[in-house]
Structures are given as C-alpha cells and as structure tokens.
C-alpha cells in the first residue's frame, strides 16, 4: 500500500498549484447574531447545563439533605470534601489515565478511518460501492445490548480479559463515523477540488492528506468529540471486560462509589461530576477546531 503514497516523480506539485477551495468557502457566517439569537442560546444553555449544575449541588450536600423536600437549589459546604473522597475512593487518577488512553485512541482512530472510508464512499467510484455502503448502515441496526454477550465470549477466547485492548478494539467498529463522514464530504468537498488535485498528479493518498483532511476538519472535530464522549461514558462493556484492575475506566470506577446498603448519594454525584468535567475540557479543545472551519485547513498543506 505504501507505494501508492509516493507521488509520481515527474510532478512535484508546486505550492502555487496546490488545489484550493474557493476563497468564498469561508467558515462561519458573516452575519452577527442579534439579541434574540443570544436569548435562545442562553435558554438552551441553561436547560443543557442544569442537570450538570444540579449534580454539583448534590455533590456539595449530604444524604440527609438530598432526601429532603424541597431538594436543595444551592451549593452546600461538602463539595470539596466529597470530591476528594470520591477521587481517592475510586482511585480516579489512574482511571482518568486509562480512560484517556482508551477514548483517545478510539476517537483518533475512528476519525481517521472514517474520514478515509467516508471519502471513498462519497467521492470515488468503485464496484460494489452502494452495496458496501448499505452494509455499513446495516451494521448500525444491530442492537448493541445483545452483541455484548457473544463479544465477551470472543474476548475470553482471545484471553484479552482485563486488558485495555479489549475495550479499544470493539469500539473501533464505527459505522456511524463512516456514514457521517460520507454525508459530510458529499456536501463539503467539491468535486472540482479533487479533480484539480488529480490533474496535478496527486495520488489518492495525497488527495486524502492534502484535500480531504483539510476540508473535513470541522466534521472530524465533531466526530472526534462524539466518539471520545461515547467511549468515555461507556459502562457495560468495560465493566464486563476489565474486572481485575483496580481502576479500569472512569465510569467503572465511579460505579464502585457509594457502597454499602445505603449508598451515599452525594458521593455518587461527586463521582459523576468528576467523570464529566474532563469531557467539558475536551469539548473546549475540539470546539475551537470547529470554529476555525475549512478555510484555514485548506491553506495549510
């Protein structure tokens, strides 16, 4: 496969001739949002964040207060104490590291593979394309709850129990990602741009690197975010697979909080909060990528 990466020697694509998107394909609207737009966004933001804020409020209280009515609407004094206990009790430091590895590898791999496959399905012609695409969509229809049992039988046979790869590999099968990228590239990548690259003698791999990736950047950031969160929050499968490890993934570690016949709700909420906060950080990083849009990407080469 590596041979196809090498561009034809005779055509060192000059910088000036690099395929470029129309200048007008600039990201983001030029229209400024009015007060109504802000009002809608603020309402939407409050609704979206409310449960998270309430989680923090609950984490700052104790069991007795949480059982009361009306429920607390403002922060109590136990937040940092509960966060600390949750952090140590669930050994979240290691769990964060493990989960970051799992979710990071999954997200990056899915994004790269999906972009490449999505490009092929959207813009290249080959025999069986439509049939293969239907198969991809078909795999999404398999209810995941059920696949877990045979999948675990496989992992047991492979002797992969308790190893991170048992969580990573099955998560890489992402028909969603392929379909998502195909639909995005159908729209976002004008055929002329690819043709211009072809005319310059770029091989398919070169087209992917210099044309597809830059054009797909906003979608890649969105897909990366979604996949990262999905893997990060996955519970059932990692719980089944990572049994012996002290602190396997965040969701599994947090599920051990609040033991005893009367679980401590505020501690559970503190764990839930700790499990979510890093995601918001990731969003902020990826979120910036979407703002940039495709133009910057296309200039880069």
């Amino acid at each position, binding site marked *: 496969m590596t041979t196809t990466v090498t561009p034809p020697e005779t055509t060192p694509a000059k910088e000036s001739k690099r395929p470029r998107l129309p200048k007008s394909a600039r990201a983001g609207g030029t229209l400024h949002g009015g007060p109504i737009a802000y009002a809608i966004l603020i309402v939407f933001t409050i609704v979206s964040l409310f449960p998270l804020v309430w989680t923090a409020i609950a984490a700052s209280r104790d069991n*007795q207060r949480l059982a009361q009515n009306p429920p607390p609407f403002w922060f109590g004094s136990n937040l940092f104490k509960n966060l600390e206990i949750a952090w140590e009790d669930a050994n979240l430091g290691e769990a964060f590291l493990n989960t970051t590895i799992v979710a990071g590898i999954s997200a990056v791999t899915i994004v790269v593979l999906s972009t490449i496959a999505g490009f092929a399905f959207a813009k290249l012609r080959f025999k069986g394309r439509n049939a293969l695409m239907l198969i991809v969509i078909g795999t999404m229809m398999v209810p995941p709850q059920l696949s877990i049992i045979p999948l675990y039988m496989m992992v047991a046979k*492979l*002797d992969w*129990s308790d190893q991170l*790869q048992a969580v990573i590999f099955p998560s890489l099968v992402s028909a969603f990602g392929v379909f998502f990228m195909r639909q995005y590239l159908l729209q976002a990548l004008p055929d002329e741009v690819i043709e211009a690259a072809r005319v310059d003698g770029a091989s398919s791999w070169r087209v992917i690197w210099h044309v597809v990736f830059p054009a797909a950047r906003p979608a890649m950031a969105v897909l990366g975010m979604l996949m990262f969160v999905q893997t990060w929050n996955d519970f059932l499968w990692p719980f089944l697979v990572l049994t012996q490890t002290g602190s396997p993934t965040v969701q599994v570690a947090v599920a051990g909080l609040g*033991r005893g016949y009367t679980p401590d709700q505020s501690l559970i909420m503190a764990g839930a909060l700790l499990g979510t906060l890093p995601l918001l950080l990731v969003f902020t990083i990826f979120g910036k990528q979407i703002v940039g849009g495709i133009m910057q990407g296309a200039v880069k080469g």
Partner: protein
Amino acid sequence: MRARTLPLSRQRSGGGKPIARKALAIAAVVSLGTGLLAGCADDGGSDGDGSSSDSEGKTKITMGLFGTFGYEEAGLYAEYEKLNPDIKIEQTVVERNENYYPALLNHLTTNSGLMDVQAIEIANIAEVVGTQADKFVDMSKAEGVDKKNWLEWKWEQATTKDGQTVGLGTDVGPMAICYRKDLFEKAGLPTDRAEVGKLWAGDWNKFIETGEKYKKKAGDDTFFMDSPGGLLNAVLSSEKEKFYDASGEVIYKSNPAVKAAFDLTAEAAEKGLVQSQTQFQPAWDTTIANSKFATVACPPWMLGTIKAKSQPDAAGKWDVAVAPKSGNWGGSFLGVPKSGKNVEEAQKLVAWLTAPEQQAKLFKVQGSFPSTPGAYDSPEVTGAKNEMTGDSPIGEIFSEAAKQIPVQVIGPKDQIIQQGLTDNGVILVTKGKSAKEAWETATKTIDNNLDK
C-alpha cells in the same frame, strides 16, 4: 487502602497469540496510538501465578464484591494481612448487584475474568447453585469450615443436592417491624415494643387491622406502611414455600400462600394503608425524610437506610418490634471459583471472613447481621444499639427473629417473580386498579418473563 495496578504497566510486550498479533498489525496501521498499544499483545494471566503476586512475593487475593459488604471499612482485610503477612487482599466493588450479577454470569460461563473470591447475593444463589456449581470449589471441604456454625437454612441455600457447598454465608436479614413511636402515640396505639408486637403477633391480618386503627386516627397525613412492595415481601418471606416447591417446580400461581399475600397487600393498598411508592427510589427516600409513614419491614440493615435518609430530629423516634411472622430479607455468600489463581488461599480467607467472630465485628460496623448463631452471644451483637432506635436492644430482637426464620424453598427466578408481583402488581392497586386487574397484569408479565 487498596493497592492497584495500572493495567498497561502489567502487560508485557511480544509473544502474543497469533490472532492478537494480527489484530495488533491492523492497529499499527490504523492507529496513531501505536506506541501505546504495542505493549498490549500479551495477557499476563495464562501463565499461572505471574500476575497474582506482586514484587515483594506476596500472594494477592482478589475479591469481587457488590455494594453490601464493608470488609475494608471494618478493617478486616488489614487484620487478615497482619495475621498472614504473605497475603495481600485487593477488592473490586460495584455498587449495584444488577450490574454485578450478569457480569459474574458471563465470567462464569466463559471461565474468564473471575476473581479469587466472588460474592453472590441471595436472590441469585439458587441459580448459581443450580447452573454454575461446577465452576466453584466445594467450600464445605475447606479448612476450618464447620457446617454447624451457620444457620441451617443459610447453609442449605448454597448447597447443591449432592452436597457441594458453593459459597459460605455472610450476613442474613432477620426481619422485624420498625415503627415510629411518636406516630403510634399520636394514633393512640401502644408504643412499647412488647405491646406493639402483641398487636399483630402471629398473624399478618392483625397487622392490617392495626393499620386500619392507625389510619382512623392519623388520617391522610401519614401512611401506616412505607410501600406495598415492602409488605408483600415481608409476608412472603415468612412462608415455607413461595414461588417454587421442593422439587423445583414453579408454583407461584397455584400456591395459596402467594395469592393470600398478594390479596392482603392489595387490601392494604385499597384501604390506603401503604404509600404508592417503590422502595429505594428517590421519591421513597423523601418519604423517610419527611416522616410520611409509621412502619416498615425492617432487617437490621434497614436501620442504616433509615438513618441515612432521615432528618436529625428523627433520631431515637424509632423502635423495633417483632414481626407477625419471622422471615429473612437479604444476605449474601462468598464463593471461590475453581479457575482462580490462589484457590487455597482464597478458601482460607473466605473461611476466616465468614467465621462468627468476624461476622460479629462486621455487624458492629456495617449492620449486616451474622449468619452464624455463634456470634449472637458476642458483645458486639448483644450490646448493639442504633442511633435511630435509642436504647432498644436491637441485637437481641434480631437474634430472636433470626432463630425463627423458616427454612424457605428458594428458586432461581424468585427475583423476577417477586418483582413482577410488586412492580407490575400490587403497586397498581395503590394507583386505583382493582386487585384482580393487578394480579392479571403481574402474572402475565411474570409468565412471559419466565418463558424461555
């Protein structure tokens, strides 16, 4: 403290199985995280003791538990490690048995991912005994284990027909009735625990009658009992046979005791004696906090729940009376899977953890009541008090109840049947459905759920 190993650091590179290597090759092509993955190709588990001893040569025993144990909190691991300097105990706990048990089943059926010790809840023990016994070692033959130490029924529950004991009993849940002295007084009922016990001694119908008396005075402000599910469970657990007969046949629909318990609960619901609540749900929690009911069927651990959800001013307002008939609610077992890495050491640990002395210590810290009568005379039990019940000698009351628990026939699908009767049955009566409709909905649901 728990010592933990980061999974990645444990894994050695190279020498993986062919399929793993192939998969790894794919990963190398596709993944930017290749460097991180390279170490994952081998499992450390197939070559015996490799991963079960740490660098100091100690034997590591892993415990797989769900919510209710508290060995670590009670300091029992530390004590055992002190007694046995070569041993290191590591536990993995998940809060909910609903998550724990299906995973355990998957691990048992594939013989992988099992820990040295696995806990089993009473709701699942019949199924484990019936279908997974060959995966466990026979604990009756373990060193220092004497059958006579345990309550007979507790031992029998974990023992197969041909005499293999799958797990050793940890705690039991002898049931009494916890009641609010202040609410009883307001309703003109006696408050002394002996007199209260006499109100309904030996007959659940009398319990309902008491409820009617209560309601006449108390009106609609509070309810007599916390939930229909709690009542149904209490009545059923005092029966010798409920859903299965001794031969293992499902008899829940034809057993008059089940129908009687259902009808009695439905009657209580129709008369407005029980709240329209499901136990352990947030809304039910709030009814504890707001002092909305006067009685609850009460194994020792329920006092912990009450304490955790109550306002501070409720302390000392509760007391514990004998239930109309004794029954058991809850309890667990510890089993040792054959495929574990340290079977013998694990057996020794389990025997020690479930011995009367340790069970007594655990009761003091965790409120889980011993399944070994030998512990009932220990000062930890006889002198037990609870913040919610003031000076009441709860240890004595529960010990007495424990000794009178009938040997009940349990079956693999008890939980599904009981859940159907509760959540798809009597709860509907509290919402205005007739007892007949509720019974039909429940049985239809249960039959569908049982049908393979």
